[in-house]
């Protein structure tokens, strides 16, 4: 691809697509059909942008299993008592009423790539010209021996937002002063690299506000280091001295098993006990991406870096956590950014809209304590067939409190902008 200019490549792709699907946008024929599976950070954005920018020329269907979407982003703030549950739960009504998106609530169980149709669990079949998969992650429960979907009812993961988040909140609120929490953090790659560490910050914040001065939180990590580690460690020391202990694999020697009934996690070093266990297992692309055979050995889907098109099937775009997006972390912001690139190329394919060189961006904010926000972010472009970062930044350890407060306030603005960008 490096021998081609971007324009030539776009033209070549356009030709290829036209040859494959025999003109989608022939006058007098039915409108081209774009189907999106998953109404989360990636999928809702893709649906809104395809619908908005095609101005009625494209038939857009969004298939989403749940009636409402609770964001994982800011779910830690809900756990910490900083946000309420309603404020992180969103409806699909505006996408339907203002953008003309057909929202179908159901579980997509099968993609027929040759017939270009998608089947729902209830037997309904939906045809597509272009398909977007943004199913997010599935959890590999038994990557932590002893953990399972049933065990998650006792020791929640809360890594997919909704009932799991509420369960973890209920269990947190039920803790008494002196009760302890043990978190098992996930191995790379997983959604939201700073997420586990923001979560323990918010748990400690909750303890602090409730005067639970004798409760502690232990993180058993399979990774030797983690995102924004220096910032988190300093923040914990400042806001919650002695409350949070992070234990690296060189110390615990490996996580062997968990028993959710006794509240114990066994490691090479020792057995850890918690009144509450928060187990976050290894992750993989959502089941539908596996069923469609778009997944590689990593458990995620390879994409073409300047379009988010699957390398396996040019009629399918995979965005968000399910994709392997080069240097981009798995985040809601990334998924939203990738959705816009995919939407542009889909409209290029089906109604010959102009396409431009892909630009991607991401910022992940984390709240460590009251008015103490930190951020890490980058700009990305497609470079030699990979999504690579072209510039990046991270909050400084020695920033003054005013900057941290502004950073926290920015994150509130982002949440507002982000959810409007997804749902209208």
């Amino acid at each position, binding site marked *: 691809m490096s021998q081609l200019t971007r324009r030539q490549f776009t033209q070549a792709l356009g030709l290829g697509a036209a040859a494959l699907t025999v003109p989608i946008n022939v006058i007098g024929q039915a409108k081209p059909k774009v189907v999106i599976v998953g109404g989360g950070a990636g999928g809702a954005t893709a649906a809104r942008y395809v619908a908005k920018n095609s101005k009625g020329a494209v038939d857009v269907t969004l298939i989403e299993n749940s009636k409402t979407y609770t964001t994982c982003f800011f779910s830690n703030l809900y756990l910490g008592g900083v946000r309420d549950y309603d404020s992180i739960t969103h409806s699909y009504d505006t996408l339907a009423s203002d953008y003309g998106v057909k929202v179908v609530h159901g579980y997509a169980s099968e993609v027929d790539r040759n017939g270009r149709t998608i089947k729902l669990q209830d037997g309904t079949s939906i045809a597509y010209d272009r398909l977007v998969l943004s199913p997010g992650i599935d959890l590999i429960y038994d990557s932590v021996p002893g953990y399972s979907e049933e065990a998650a009812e006792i020791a929640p993961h809360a890594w997919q937002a909704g009932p799991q988040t509420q369960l973890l909140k209920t269990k947190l609120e039920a803790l008494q002063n002196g009760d302890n929490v043990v978190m098992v953090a996930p191995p790379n790659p997983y959604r939201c690299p700073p997420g586990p560490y923001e979560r323990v910050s918010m748990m400690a914040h909750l303890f602090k506000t409730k005067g639970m001065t004798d409760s502690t939180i232990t993180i058993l990590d399979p990774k030797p280091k983690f995102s924004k580690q220096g910032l988190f460690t300093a923040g914990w020391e400042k806001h919650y001295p002695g409350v949070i202990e992070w234990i690296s694999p060189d110390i615990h020697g490996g996580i062997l098993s968990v028993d959710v009934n006794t509240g114990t996690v066994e490691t090479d070093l020792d057995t850890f006990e918690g009144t509450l266990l928060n187990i976050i297992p290894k992750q993989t692309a959502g089941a539908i991406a596996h069923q469609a055979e778009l997944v590689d050995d990593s458990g995620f889907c390879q994409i073409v870096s300047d379009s988010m098109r699957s390398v396996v099937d040019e009629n399918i775009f995979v965005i968000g956590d399910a994709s392997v997006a080069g240097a981009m972390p798995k985040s809601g912001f990334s998924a939203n*950014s990738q959705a816009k690139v995919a939407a542009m190329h889909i409209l290029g394919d089906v109604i010959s809209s102009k396409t431009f060189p892909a630009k991607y961006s991401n910022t992940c904010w984390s709240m460590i304590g009251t008015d103490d926000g930190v951020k890490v972010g980058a700009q990305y472009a497609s470079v030699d067939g990979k999504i690579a970062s072209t510039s990046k*930044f991270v909050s400084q350890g020695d920033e003054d409190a005013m900057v941290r407060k502004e950073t926290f306030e*920015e994150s509130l603005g982002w949440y507002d902008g982000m959810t*409007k960008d997804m749902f209208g």
Partner: protein
Amino acid sequence: MNRLLISLFVLCCTTSSYAGDTDSRVTDILKLDSDEAYGEYLASECSTCHNTSSADNGIPIIHGQDQQALIAALLAYQDKTRENETMQSVAGALGNEEIGALARYFSSQK
């Protein structure tokens, strides 16, 4: 571009803190032709943070702002005379053509 506006801008900016070469970059950018569809595509990146009702929430509203002011602000983040690491990184990835297209797009929004 309206000549009167440009001269007004040049006038006002000679008394402001903008660096001299920033002034001329603003004028250069204003002269560029910009593709509307390109502006709209580039602007989609901004909408993740800047929305039309973000009053008082840590991120300013840029829809409907003055074209020159938008260009000057983006250049100030780009040359790091204006603080904010996020905006410095965002603006750092923009060339003159992109800044021009974005400023035209946002100044035409309500």
